[in-house]
């Protein structure tokens, strides 16, 4: 099952290495990982999407992450009320004839055109995983020249509503 885990960590050298090493050592498959500074430059937020086969496996991931001295806080936020976004940059074949069509397709996805050349154009789309997938599918028939995607980055929503069943038990 796919889970989204959010962690805040000290922004110290090697912390990303430390954490990805931990995942691979324990045979957890990371689907995506994003890292960036938070409002506090000494603290970074990491968002992982991992594929685990059991609650117990997930429990281990979180506990092992918690053991790291540089990890401040870890949460499985999959079942919480969150905002999650990915970004994709797509360079697609675009002739003067097809440009208009592509633009029309981009509009409902709020994808923006960020570069136009003689034979291609580059689009940028952000959204949740499904939306980005759907847009890429739609654009694919024109001929993808290059594609770059980020992983998911996520935050809890400010509203209080939360799902009841957290998928790991934090033992105390």
């Amino acid at each position, binding site marked *: 099952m796919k889970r989204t885990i959010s962690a805040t960590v000290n922004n110290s050298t*090697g912390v990303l290495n*430390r954490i990805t090493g931990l995942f691979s*050592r324990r045979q957890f498959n990371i689907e995506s990982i994003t890292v960036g500074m938070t409002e506090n430059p000494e603290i970074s937020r990491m968002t992982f999407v991992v594929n685990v086969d059991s609650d117990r496996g997930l429990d281990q991931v979180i506990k*092992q992450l918690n053991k790291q*001295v540089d990890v*401040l806080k870890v949460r499985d936020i999959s079942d919480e009320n969150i905002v999650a976004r990915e970004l994709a940059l797509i360079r697609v074949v675009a002739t003067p004839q097809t440009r208009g069509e592509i633009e029309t397709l981009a509009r409902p996805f709020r994808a923006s055109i960020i570069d136009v050349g003689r034979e291609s154009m580059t689009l940028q789309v952000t959204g949740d995983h499904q939306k980005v997938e759907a847009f890429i599918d739609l654009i694919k028939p024109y001929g993808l020249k290059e594609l770059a995607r980020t992983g998911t980055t996520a935050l809890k929503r400010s509203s209080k509503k939360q799902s009841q069943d957290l998928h790991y038990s934090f033992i*105390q």
Partner: protein
Amino acid sequence: MVENQRDEGGTEMGTSVRTQAEKTANEQQTQKLNGSQIVLRALAEENVDIIFGYPGGAILPTYDEIYKMGIHHILARHEQGAIHAAEGYARVSGKPGVCVVTSGPGATNVVTGIADAMIDSLPMIVITGQVATNVIGTDAFQEADVVGVTMPITKHNIQLRDVNDIPRVMKEAFHIATTGRPGPVLIDLPKDVSTAIGEFKYPKQVHMPGYQPTVQPNRLQIKKVAAAVERAKKPVILAGAGVLHADGADELFEYATKQQIPVTNTLLGLGSFPGNHPQFLGMAGMHGLYAANMALHECDLLINVGARFDDRLTGSLNYFAPEAEVVHIDVDPAEIGKNVETAIPVVGDAKEALKSLSALDKAPVPYDEWHQHLRHYSDDYPLWYNDDGKTIKPQALLDMVYEETKGEAIVTTDVGQHQMWAAQYYRFANPHRWVTSGGLGTMGFGFPAAIGAQFAEPNRDVIAVIGDAGFQMTMQEMSILQELNLPVKIVIVNNASLGMVRQWQELFYEERYSHSLFPIQPDFLKLAEAYNIKAYKIEDPSEARATFQKGLKEDGPVLFDFRVTADENCYPMIAPGKGHHEMEGIRP
């Protein structure tokens, strides 16, 4: 220096001069020092009284300060010797072992010991030299990415980049190594940082929001444990090394005897409960006692205190403690539920948890039937071996070592059959006398660990029980014995083979002894002679005891080369994939 000046000021000069002297003293306290001096001052602040190490280019500035300050340092003959000695010291003293080595090859030579300390939760501080910061990453002479290499095998590691970080980093390192679940912390010290000038001001406290181990167990969970004990008919306590790390042997004794619950130990937990107590079932696990393993198999309540359910302990998890409600007390929350589903988790220090359990003041439930049942296992399936009267039986040898040292010695072992026989036959009655490499199973560990153990307890008998193969991995450390006349007694259990490997090949590989026999061996007596160490070779079982007694009385080091039955196997045993109830070799 500072102290002296203050004294002089007080005795020989007037009060005003004394104030002046004190002022100078204060100035000196925050005086500018170089990085190496700061490191050593920090070690002094942490009451480190011995360093095990080996010098080299990148760490030379630090060694220069060691020379100038006259710090107690033990020069090993290989870095692996240094780190295992530091481990032995940590195990026996309960204080962190400190190991200082140079960059590159010096650092990579301690990797095995770091991994060993990590898996056995030993508090260690490892300081590695590193090339100067301006050439880090250029594949400079003797450069290795030691922080990268040791990331998965340290509790924490860090590379110093700024001389002014040293006091904080050192303070944090000791704090991390010794609190919560203990472990090794590595500090990588680039050469230029060790010579840069900074200020020494040792912090009084650490501030690490990401590191807050839980020491006090949750009261509610403790009550749940007590309720489970009341419900149980067949409870058993499995005590691991966590009890020893928490210094909780007394608390374990109090709780277990008060509640009259039978106790078994993991390999590393030996000594946490008296080995000759009627409630003690012996060691559990692959080469544990049948009674102990059957207790785990049949119990309805399993209270694990400070053990991590290692696979050598549990046997196949498919058959592990099938009837039991499992309580797991551990200071490391990640251990709970890692291997075995837990009904009542308790995060906290073993000592504190046992104290809180005893404090609940529950009347004991006698469990008479259960005790009787287990006694029948103990009586009917004791440890056994066949004595042929012609060769020295390794089991008899270990039994003799136990008797002759009255069970009071510190025993270190290497890894293999002799290790299991020592665990079986040396009925440890006290904590911190058993030093063995459990989790990593590191050959080469036992002999240097004995050296460290002897430094931790200079007045106690230290017996290094070593296989003929493992001894050949780190025997160069005999130099330390010679140099310092350390009274370590080396007992080589010489079966002219990699005994445990040979046993597995016999049992599971149809006697294909692929590279496990030593048809030709060095003359250990001559080797000992080369190091000026007294040595005996003993082949005749009738001479074993007298020779051992004689050697034991010697003031200095002694090496005993006991030639034992070559093809003896270690029983009882749980074969791979089998459960506790399926032990082999429980009877002659």
